């Protein structure tokens, strides 16, 4: 019975729920979560391997909080029920730009 529940929970993991979970990780300087900051480019979940993959960027390659945020993303993904492995890839092409910030993020930043 328990195995069936876990199986069902694992199957229910999808990109949308993973992206939602990533809202718990915040850019420490901007004070905006990385999703609303526009740092998350792509989120996928492979049901067979139960592996979550995130492609994201940083506001700059010199971001001194970069590794801290990437570690935070990895830890958050691994806490999602049904995820057994997580991979976080950082890309700088296309580069991040302020246009990627969501309306909610802009409100926090005082736009």
């Amino acid at each position, binding site marked *: 019975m328990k195995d069936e529940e876990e199986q069902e929970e694992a199957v229910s993991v999808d990109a949308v729920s993973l992206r939602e979970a990533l809202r*718990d990780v*915040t850019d420490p*300087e901007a004070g905006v979560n990385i999703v609303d900051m526009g740092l998350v480019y792509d989120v996928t979940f492979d049901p067979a391997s139960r592996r979550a993959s995130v492609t994201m960027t940083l506001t700059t390659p010199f*971001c001194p909080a*970069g590794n801290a945020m990437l570690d935070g993303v990895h830890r958050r993904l691994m806490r999602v029920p049904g995820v057994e492995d997580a991979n976080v890839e950082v890309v700088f092409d296309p580069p991040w730009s302020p246009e990627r910030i969501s309306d909610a993020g802009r409100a926090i930043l*005082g736009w």
Partner: protein
Amino acid sequence: MVDPARYSPPFALVRAHFAAGVLGLATFAGLLLAHAAELGGHHFQKPHLLLVHVAALGWLMPVALGAMLQLVPVLFEAPLASWKIGAAASVLYAVGASGLVGHLGTLSVGWGLPLTAAMAAGAIWIHAAVLVLTVVRGRASGLTAAFVLAALAHLLFAVTLGFLLAWNLCAPYLPLSHLVVLRAHAHSAALGFFGMLVMGAGLRLMEMFLVSRGAPELPGWIAFGTLNAALVLLDASSLLGPWEAADGASAALAAVGIGAFAMQARLVFVRRVRRHADATWLLSGAGLAHLASAAGLGLALALGPAMPALRDRLVLAYGLVAIVGFAGSVVVGQLYKIVPFLVWLHRFAPLAGTARVPAASELLAERPKRVQAALMQSGIVLVAAGILNESAGLRTVGAGLFAASALAVAGNLWAIDRRKPFKEG
């Protein structure tokens, strides 16, 4: 990608430098209040020498060294050449600088003066060697790197002249007036080191903390070129001259450089993603205003009529707005960004993704920082007005406000440093 944890020295080392700097600020503020009535006359007097060196060596230098130990490895993407040698140099510096300030404050011109000056200067040379070794191993270039490297060059020139001056006070040997060497020493330290460092690091920190991207750098390079040319001219005129035309040209170049830097700062500021103006930007803006005032006073001193009484007051006000107004305001403002960020990185980053963690800016509310900034700025303006107006009352009230602001800085940074993670549930 830059990983501060990989490149930077232990947090405790940087924190110790900042704590020493805050202690130096409190000491400076107490001495400013105690000597407020004596701020007048020629600049080469005991209270003035004491105050300038407590501010420069006790307050600003420890913060600058701590910031460079943290910033240079991140900026140049290379591990610090040796943080242990840096730490040992800091201990030597603390002993030497304390002794030097004590000797200057009492104008004790025995051999203890050049001995302590040699210790402080030697420690700074060691620090500079560690930082230069770090830089040559790194790969960054650009405007901030140029400013930081120039700042280190001016620092070495300033401390060498400082040591020679201390030796000369003990056993006179200089073939030229110590006052002209002092002029080169003071400008190399204030505008050459603190100015270049604050400008170079400030531009980078502005980009980082305001999340500002894509600002063109031409005004910054113009500022870099003209300010360095101004300093070289002034040093040459002081040590090889005097050349009156060079003094005027130097002051004019410095004014152009400061204007160009203000334009560069504006270019970064208008591209910011973070729109809220916080205490750091209020203090940095105030610092820029003080720098513009210093440029105006410098031009007046270089080109204006030589009325000794007025000149003495202008020189003191010039020193105050350049060192305390410009460098001091920007340094305190940046501490409000750097300290929360370091505390976040070392205490909260390991919790990211597992618990709710505050942003760096949430480690202390904005109001206490703004109150501190208001106290500091009103204090500096009143002391400057009291110097120009020869009003001991104004200077004392201003020094009192500044002392209150120094205590507020200590309280604010202590509160940030003690901040604990949220309790769950």
